[in-house]
Each structure stands twice: as C-alpha cells, then as structure tokens.
C-alpha cells in the first residue's frame, strides 16, 4: 500500500503544460507585443528602429478623437450587431416556445433544426460573396425576383444605399445565427425541471403564461451567456462585411476588425494605429468577458454570503441596541 503515497501532483502541471506554453507564445506574447506597438511609431513596410512616442497615448488619442473612420467603424459594428441580435433572439425565442410546447407537438422538428441551422456551418466568406452576387445590379437573382413578383419596374441598385447595405449584412448575420441560438435555447428549456411545467399545467396556465412566467426566467443564465458571446462575436465581425462590400458604400459597413485589417495590411502599414485600435477592441471584450464571469459565477453561493452578512449585521445592530 505504499503506492498510495506517490504524489501525482506533478502530472497536473505536465498535462497542462502544452496548453500554457502555446498560450504564452501564441496569445499572451502577441497581445503584449500589440499593446507595445500601440504606444510606438511603428509604420511603413521596411522595418526600422521603433520608438515609444513622446506621448505614449498619442495613437489612442488620435483614434478616439480625430479619426472619423475609426469612430464610424465602432458605431457600424454596434449597429450591425444590435440590428441582427434583436430579431435573432426574438425569432429564436418564438421557435423555442413552439418547439418545446408539448400541447402543440410540432412534427418534423429534427428536420427543421437541421435546415434552420444549416447556414451557420457554411463558410461565411462564401455566403458573403454569394449574397453580393445575388443582389447584383442591374441583373441579379433578387432583382429578377422583384420584377417577377411585380415589386419593382426597374432594377434596384441595392448595394449603393447605405441603409440597405447595412440591412443586408445584418440580415445575413441574423440568418446565419438564429438557428444556432434556437438550438441552444431549446436545450436550455429541456434542462428545466419538468415538474415546473406540470404544476403550471395543473394550475391552468396557458401557453403564454407558461412561457413568460416559467420558461423565460429559467433561461436567464443561458440568455445572458448568448448575449455576451454574441457581443464579443459581433465586435470581431469581419468575414461578411469584408467580402460583401469591403466597407462601402462610404464606410457605412466598415467594422472595427476591418479597420484594423485595413490600417495594417492593405497598403498603408500603419501598424501602430492598428495596434492601438486592437487594444481598444481588447479592452471592450475584456469588460464584456468580466461581465459574463460576474454573471455566470455561482449565484446561490453569492446570495448565501449576502444573506449571512445581512443577518450578521442585523444581529450586531440588535446587540448594539440591547446595550
């Protein structure tokens, strides 16, 4: 029985070592490097000695206060995200309510799930180019369809109008992701204790009441998780807008990732500016992740602590009064 005394603790370190090493080399170091570049004058194709700027925050200051393009990209990113997230969530919730309603007993759910999720798995670049071809001017499938249905007499130049261009990108994102959100939410509903639904049915709750009083509150954590991961995903939106219109018309579909890519890799080689923009993006996503961490932490444990504190304080007060 001496074997029991052998310590296996070192294997914990050994088994996680490749992960840590890869993280240090390929994530942490590049992030720190990016942060440093953000404070320097590194630009141009030919490498030359770089210097920290006299005012280290000059790049950040320029971006936030003087760079119209960058500010536009932040606003666009937010607009494109919110206009796809709200309808995506609404539709996903509606479908979840339908598919999980036992009284409705919707048939063919498996097939619907497979088909509604499908766009999510196809390469985003392919979808972006496909849609820009579908909306081609003067003759493209969508224009043909509009004329066939008698919705328009002359071809429409969809991609010239800022609102339409943004709308189509938001639609593509919505179309690619609502199936995913729906499946996650349905799984969440399946995880709710069935006794809750049974007792609601016995109490005579209708479909609406059950959904709003039981299903939605139980899904709160999953909804928040979806919200925040979608926000970080939206913040880094690149493939669709880049290949759909490359930012046009008039920068109306330029996102922050595209701004970073454009500054560094499309002929201007403004690495310092791109790095500063990356750091701003990193800070936003760090705040969002922190929020998620706070939300996902063990809620009950936190509540218990709070109550304990409260009773402790009450007891202390009572004791103080008694004296």
């Amino acid at each position, binding site marked *: 029985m001496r074997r029991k005394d052998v310590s296996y603790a070192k294997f914990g370190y050994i088994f996680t070592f490749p992960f840590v*090493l890869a993280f240090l080399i390929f994530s942490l170091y*590049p992030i720190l490097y990016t942060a440093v570049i953000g404070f320097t004058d590194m630009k141009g194709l030919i490498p030359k000695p770089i210097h920290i700027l006299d005012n280290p925050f000059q790049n950040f200051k320029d971006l936030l206060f003087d760079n119209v393009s960058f500010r536009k990209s932040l606003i666009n990113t937010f607009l494109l995200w919110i206009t796809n997230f709200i309808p995506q969530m609404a539709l996903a919730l509606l479908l979840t309510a339908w598919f999980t309603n036992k009284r409705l007993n919707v048939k063919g759910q498996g097939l619907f799930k497979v088909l509604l999720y499908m766009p999510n798995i196809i390469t985003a670049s392919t979808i972006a180019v496909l849609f820009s071809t579908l909306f081609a001017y003067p003759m493209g499938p969508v224009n043909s369809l509009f004329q066939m249905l008698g919705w328009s007499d002359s071809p429409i130049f969809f991609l010239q109008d800022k609102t339409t261009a943004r709308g189509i990108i938001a639609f593509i994102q919505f179309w690619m992701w609502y199936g995913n959100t729906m499946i996650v939410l349905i799984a969440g509903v399946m995880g709710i204790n069935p006794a809750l639904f049974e007792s609601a049915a016995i109490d005579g709750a209708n479909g609406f009441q059950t959904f709003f009083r039981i299903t939605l509150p139980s899904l709160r954590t999953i909804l928040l998780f979806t919200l925040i991961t979608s926000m970080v*995903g939206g913040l880094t939106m690149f493939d669709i807008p880049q290949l759909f219109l490359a930012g046009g018309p008039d920068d109306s579909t330029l996102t922050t990732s595209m701004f970073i*890519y454009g500054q560094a890799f499309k002929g201007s080689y403004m690495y310092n500016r791109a790095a500063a923009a990356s750091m701003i993006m990193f800070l936003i996503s760090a705040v969002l992740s922190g929020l998620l961490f706070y939300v996902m932490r063990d809620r009950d444990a936190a509540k218990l602590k709070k109550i304990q504190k409260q009773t402790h304080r009450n007891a202390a007060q009572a004791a103080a009064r008694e004296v």
Partner: protein
Amino acid sequence: MEKNRESSKVTQTVNKTIIYVVCIALAVLSILPFWIMFVNATRSTPEIQSGLSLLPSSHMMGNLKVLLDKSFDPLQGFMNSFIIASGATLCTVYFSSLAAYGLVTYSWKLRGAFFTFIMCVMMIPSQASAIGFYQFMYKLHWTNNFLPLILPAIAAPAVVFFMRQYLLATLSIEIVEAARVDGSGEFRTFNRIIMPLMMPAIATQAIFAFVANWNNLFMPLILLTQKEKYTMPIMVSLLRGDIYKTEFGSIYMGLALTALPLFVVYFLLSRYIIAGVALGGVKE
C-alpha cells in the same frame, strides 16, 4: 361547454397551421440561396442574366473551365485548407483533452488558479492580438507557413472547459487507479484508456474545431500572401475581384465548389452537429 372545446380545437388548428407555414418558410429561406447558387453554377452567364430559374441547365463544364482558366485552383485551396484544419483540429482535441484530464484527475496547487485563468482567456478575440502576432511571425519568417495557423490551436480554452465538464460527469477515478495498480504509466493511461472513453466529446469538438478552422478568413488572409498557400476562404475572396466581373456562371461555380465539402459533411453528421450545438458553448 361542447362549443367551447370545439372553438379551442379550431384555434389549435389555426395556430398549428401558422407554425408550420412559418417553419417551412424559414426552411425555404435557408435552402433557397444555396439552391440558386448550385443551379446557377450550371447555367451560362447569359442565362443567369436573363432571369431566375430553379432548374439546372447544362453549362456546368463551361463554367468550370472559365473558372479554372483564371488562376482559381480549388484543388490546391482544398488541400491547404484541409492540412490546416486537420492539423489544428488534432492539436485542439488532443491537448485540450490532456489539459482537461490534468485538471480533473490530479490535485495540484495551482489547479483552481489554472481553471480561473482558462475562464478568463476564453473570450479573447484573435483580432485583438493580430498585429503583434503578425510582427512576431514576420520576424520568425513564418509568414506563408501553415504552422502559425496550426500550433496556436493547442491552446483552446473553450474546448478545455467543455472537456472538463464532460470528464467531471463521466470519469470515475477508480478506472485510473485500477490502471495504476496494473502498472500503467500516467501518459499510457491517458492515451489508451481515457481517450477512448472521451470519444463522444472529442468527436463533437473535432467537428466544430474543423469547421471553424476551415471557415477562418482573418488569420490566413493576414499571414498567407503566396497564391499556392491560399486557403478556401481566401480563394472565395478572389471571386469578388475584377477578373470574374461579368462571369457570373463561373463565380457561382467557384462558390458552389467551396461550399460543397461542407454540405457533404453537414448532411452526414448533422445529427451530431445539432447535438453538439445543444450542449452549448460552441459560439465562435
């Protein structure tokens, strides 16, 4: 009372009709763009410009020829994407399983800290470090090399998190102890006994890792500048360029070729993929 029941039955039928109409409309919306893509890949450019059709035509070979004549090499792109995606997938699933096993099985001093660390770095977007990463790889002369697209996959925090949850739910420590009694080393135990047990989780994560790496555009676009190193998504971006401006037939053909492998994979594995999504945490 009888009447009441009757009317509620009617409402139920109406509701169900609405639900099926909406679901079928959404299903059509999912299929239609791809349907048009595949159909138009077989139609000539004049046919495409003369209007919409849902039936294939006979110009598939012609479109393919025009496409291939203009320096579009789908086979090369396919190979490159395949090498990168498989390499990255192997790295991700093996080392993530290993790290998760290390987290679950052994009690070591920094275990809690390591788990918190994984939770913290789970959502760092690769765009945030792209500039430093590019400069670093440039200095190593690793641009136009597949390694910087494969090796970073060793550290996949979200996958470690998923694998840990799976192991916590399924692994009984007795198995590990029994293996130790039989004289099996720790690595051997992991490779021979634990990995096979984890197969369901590994398969799910492998599918998602593969698809995510296959579809990735940002990093390859930054790092790969030589034509013969292009991946599928970069090739797609060529279709937007001037060389194909009016050759709609071949553009659709190119798009169809890049999407086809994914459709095949999806319809073979859709059951597992849907189940994997339902397990959560697989948002990009």
